[in-house]
């Protein structure tokens, strides 16, 4: 859960880059949706951790500052500091492409985390975690399919 919060926070950080770098209305709309869903899920994870007496990271206030990713543990699919730097430097179609590629990589990492969760002895034995993981799985699969389709419509590099 604590790891997944940082994982989600990176998606929010990526979405925050769209406004100044892309004019694509469909991408902007996708970004808004990812922002809302990831923030909702972060809040849900924080609440769950509080209820279980554990520390809940709150990375969102720091978004916009240069986090660089170097203090966080590596999690499946998370963009490296170099990838984030490249994304921040890109503009227009180049940005759109890097964003979609990066977010697909990011979401596939979340799917991997869910797969590992369900394959871990003793995990997902409360409704809250079971539901959350099932929802992440369904939502992010759908968004990956959507982003792949969007990527296919971008002209080649």
């Amino acid at each position, binding site marked *: 859960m604590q790891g997944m919060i940082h994982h989600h926070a990176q998606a929010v950080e990526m979405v925050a880059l769209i406004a100044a770098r892309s004019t694509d209305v469909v991408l902007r*709309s996708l970004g808004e949706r990812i922002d809302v869903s990831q923030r909702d899920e972060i809040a849900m994870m924080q609440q769950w951790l509080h209820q279980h007496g554990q520390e809940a990271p709150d990375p969102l206030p720091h978004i916009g500052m240069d986090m660089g990713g170097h203090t966080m543990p590596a999690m499946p699919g998370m963009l490296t500091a170099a990838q984030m730097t490249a994304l921040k430097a890109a503009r227009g179609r180049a940005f759109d492409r890097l964003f979609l590629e990066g977010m697909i990589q990011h979401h596939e990492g979340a799917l991997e985390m869910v797969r590992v969760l369900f394959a871990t002895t003793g995990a997902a*034995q409360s409704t809250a975690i079971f539901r959350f993981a099932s929802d992440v799985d369904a939502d992010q699969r*759908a968004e990956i399919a959507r982003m792949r389709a969007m990527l296919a419509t971008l002209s080649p590099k």
Partner: protein
Amino acid sequence: MPPVSSSRATRTVALALSVFVVAARAFAQGASTTDPRATLKAGWKDAGEASWNLQVVSSTWKPEAMYDAKNLGNFSFMNSDLAFAGKHVFQGNFNGFQIWDASDLKHLKLTTLYPCPGGQGDLSVWGNLLFMSVEETRGRVDCASGGVKDTVSAERFRGIRIFDITDIEHPKVITQVQTCRGSHTHTLVEDPKDKGVVYIYVQGTSVVRSPSEMAGCSGAMPDKDPNTSLFRIEIIRVPLAHPAEAKIVNAPRIFADSAGAIAGLWKGGEHGAGTQATARTDQCHDITVYPAIGLAAGACSGNGIILDIKDPANPQRIAEVMDPNFAYWHSANFSNDGSKVLFTDEWGGGVAPRCRASDKLTWGADAIFTLQDRALALSGYYKLPVAQTNTENCVAHNGAIIPVPGRDIMVQGWYQGGVSVFDFTDPAHVQEIAYFDRGPLNADTLHIGGSWSAYWHNGYIWSSEIARGLDILELTPSALLTANEIAAAQLVQHDVNNPQNQMQNTWPAQPVVARAYLDQLVRGHGLDAARATAIGAALDAAEAASGAARQGAYAALAKALVADEKGAADPARVKALAEVVGAMAK
């Protein structure tokens, strides 16, 4: 001001006007923030309450095993769906089920408390059989708590449990039918040709289990595995004389396209910029069957579908529809005459606040379609018209038709948005006519709660409260719904009621049914006012008479009413009134 061509000026004005109109409409149609429901005091048993045209008959709090005192919003102890049989109400819970004796509506008695974790715990009842949905990986064959630690285990149960409730205080497991995706919900379907069997449609929506645990299970996409456990429902056949022999007899590919591709419906995603992102159609959340008309309405993640169920073991899809405002097609209800289908959108999954003032009234709402010639056409939306707080999970959820003759009225649970009763006779102008709501469970944090489902059953509204218990509500007369209309609805009685198995409502030929139609003619100006008054007097006179004089009075009135049809503003309603009065003459 720079000169502009007149056409451009016209366009500018027109644009400004249209922006104004859209803005004004958005304002007028926005969820109300001044309604009493918007600002109720938070609390568990002491939350603020608001009601309008509804009164609370009783509120029965959860028994101890069914909540977590340290965390009232603990998902593992949510109350879920309801079923009814005789004097008993069956209430599911993610931790098992409860059976209430409702002989005294003001003082329900807990007949049976049956802990058996696994969620969602949706129930159906048929004769001495009770069916229960089990979804989660923590579900155990032996109903014990503690979950199943191993990722592959013979101890795990996900599917449909079947109990014998002959001794209702001591349900006995007869058999348990395992399924690949578990059972999020299920629907009981009778066979019109064979009274000796019932079918259970199993709606699995979550993770597919390992083939090592259950042979043949596969979570792969169809291009990788044509035998995937996704993109289907399972159908269990239950021979009533030998329920232990219940087993899966079919797993129909009800989303297939004409070329046979099993992933034939919505692929998931947005419908263009600014639209909702709709889930992929690889599951049904709910299927509501209506055996009397041989159809079912499936709310199937990315689409609404209509199934022909005359052969219930082999449902055939005959129509499908999608909607760019829907995130997740969740549940369905037919109007009593089968001409309309109301689908709900569970945007946010039921765990998020989606009735805030900033949320669109077409998102997380009901969409009403007319069903004609095997095609669905969008006719209108309804969403709880009042803003709820950030700490109230709120979105369209489960409801049922209230059998008021001559009108399409439904009661529906909106989680912590409470219970709303509305008229959708004219789907383009849906009107709320009653409500009941409580404040949030907690003012600072969202704890899951509210009305999971609100159903009409035998004269009352029954609302399964996720975190609190079971509320029984009674409609009170108003200008929007008269005492006669309520009394007519109360005449419709069903001994058994499994809410996703819709029953056709018919009304006995009684004076109050005629008076309900007459009240509607007066309210809607469907008939000349003086004539309506005279008809009321004629009904009074007939009721005051007895024997042959009464029959004669009804016969004369029926004859006169047939003549009234011509020239009436609402001839269909006058005809319905004439038929009831005519039937009373016999």
